[in-house]
């Protein structure tokens, strides 16, 4: 039975994380000698290269009604593909879209549901993070059908050549229950949850007027900016930048923490980053214990020089 992967896109191009999703679906399907089907819902001009990431089939429902995510409509669309192709396993991105449709899809498919998977299953056991990234949990689904969401940046997007046979489908969809009124994007081009590099700062910055050095470092690295909770709560930085146990949880390749002590609640949001750099003048800052690289120094001195060192490196 094939595995379905729901591709995420912005109407123009496929999101990078969806290549990981297709690659995961192909490798997951291969465990039982099966293939992966990539599903694209809504208008999309550039379908990218899903075949080379392992999509044996690509189903595109080119219906502009699907340009907004209505959970009931998305579920009906996926159910149509599942029924048509006899699929009982679906992998969605662990994203705002994936998490809004997964539960309804699981109920209608009489499937087990597990969010936040971060590795391929081994012998029918699925792994995800637990306790805000402080532990790992392994689950055995008890139903035949299974819906999962895949954590971004947990499984590499491997190139696995597949046929990529394109299929059009236009099943009848139920009426939408949600009506999109508007989408407001935040300033800055890199959404924090999707950024592969993040520069974050906290109370050590002393005040919002000092954030220029943080933003310059982020710009030099093509990184998103983030902050600790106290800084968001006092309004120095916008709420969406708050990373931590009650903020956003991120998994970038690089997380640079500037003037952040590293309280447990903050670490909970960033402890799955691949590389953590901590810049702090306090040798007792707990963050150093969670870091890969540490710089004990005055951030007002260190951060501009780090920015310059990166500029120099890029030019060499």
């Amino acid at each position, binding site marked *: 039975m094939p595995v379905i992967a729901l591709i995420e896109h912005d109407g123009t191009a496929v999101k990078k994380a969806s290549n990981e999703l297709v690659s995961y679906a192909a490798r997951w399907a291969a465990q039982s000698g099966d293939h992966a089907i990539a599903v694209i819902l809504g208008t999309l001009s550039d379908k990218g290269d899903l075949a080379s990431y392992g999509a044996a089939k690509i189903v595109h429902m080119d219906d502009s009604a699907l340009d907004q995510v209505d*959970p009931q409509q998305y579920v009906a669309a996926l159910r149509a593909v599942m029924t048509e192709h006899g699929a009982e396993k679906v992998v969605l991105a662990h*994203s*705002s879209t994936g*998490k*809004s*449709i997964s*539960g*309804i899809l*699981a*109920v209608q498919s009489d499937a*087990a*549901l*597990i*969010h*936040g998977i971060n590795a391929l299953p081994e012998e029918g056991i699925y792994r995800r*993070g*637990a*306790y805000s990234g*402080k*532990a*790992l*949990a*392994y*689950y*055995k*689904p*008890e*139903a035949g059908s299974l819906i999962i969401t895949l954590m971004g940046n947990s499984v590499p997007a491997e190139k696995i050549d597949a046929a990529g046979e394109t299929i059009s489908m236009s099943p009848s969809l139920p009426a939408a229950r949600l*009506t*999109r*009124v*508007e*989408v*407001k994007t935040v300033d800055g081009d890199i959404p924090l*949850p*999707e950024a592969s*590099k993040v520069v974050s700062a906290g109370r050590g910055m002393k005040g919002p007027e000092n954030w220029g050095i943080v933003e310059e470092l982020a710009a030099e690295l093509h990184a998103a900016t983030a902050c600790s909770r106290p800084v968001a709560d006092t309004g120095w930085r916008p709420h*969406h930048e*708050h990373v931590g*146990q*009650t903020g956003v*949880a991120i998994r970038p*390749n*690089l997380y640079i923490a500037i003037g952040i002590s590293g309280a*447990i609640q903050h670490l*909970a949001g960033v402890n799955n980053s691949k*590389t953590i750099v901590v810049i702090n003048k306090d040798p007792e800052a707990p963050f*150093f*214990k969670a870091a*890969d*690289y*540490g710089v*004990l120094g005055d951030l007002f001195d*260190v951060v501009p020089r*780090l920015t*310059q*060192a*990166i500029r*120099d*490196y890029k030019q060499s």
Partner: protein
Amino acid sequence: MNTLVCISTTPETTAKIAFSSDGTSYNSEGVNYIMNPYDEWYALVRAIEIKEADGGEVHVIHVGPGSSDIIIRKALAIGADAAYRVDTEAVEAYQVAAEIAAFAKGRDYQIIFTGKETIDHNGAEVAGLLAGMLDLPFVSFANDLKLDGSTATVGREIEGGTEVVSVELPVVISAAKGLAEQRIANMRGIMMAKRKPLEVLQPTAASAKVKVSKFELPPVKSGVTMVDPDNMKELVRLLAEEAKAL
């Protein structure tokens, strides 16, 4: 307008994470439990604000054992009118959603709130399952809610910003930061909570669809490499060549 707030209990944010020797369960010895922050600060408070504006009642429901009662009473102290506890351990999301759905079906809740996720399992699964079981529209990660008669206009968190959607009630909404401001229970609330009903319900014995195989702690990170603050060139080299992070 009547609303239902689904509340979970979680270890407090600084609780030590340890498991039984066979790794199959969380070691809760000595651990202090709290109401899941997203449920308490955002879901519950927004429901109470709706009651204060439009009348009606706020009910809370929890799936769990008697030891949760003290936390459920806190919800009453903050301002809920009545509480229900399904007397069974919360095993996994499908089972919890099924118990809540069995309770909520046929009751006139215009909005069913949950928190966006719990801070221990980080699942964010119950709300969507609940919407599926009750065949209700679902708006996840709401950070703003305006009501106009039977229409809700909801801002929700998406990657890179906020999406605003309008939906006809009844609806399931999962609450994210920004939906309301945290409230502390005052003395009056605490006193009044003692007289509010907390009804214990028998479970429907909904089965779980997922079983825990084991928990484990991740491998300990090897020590930090300290870099001289005067040598940022070296840090960049390490990031580029050793960590391959640039």
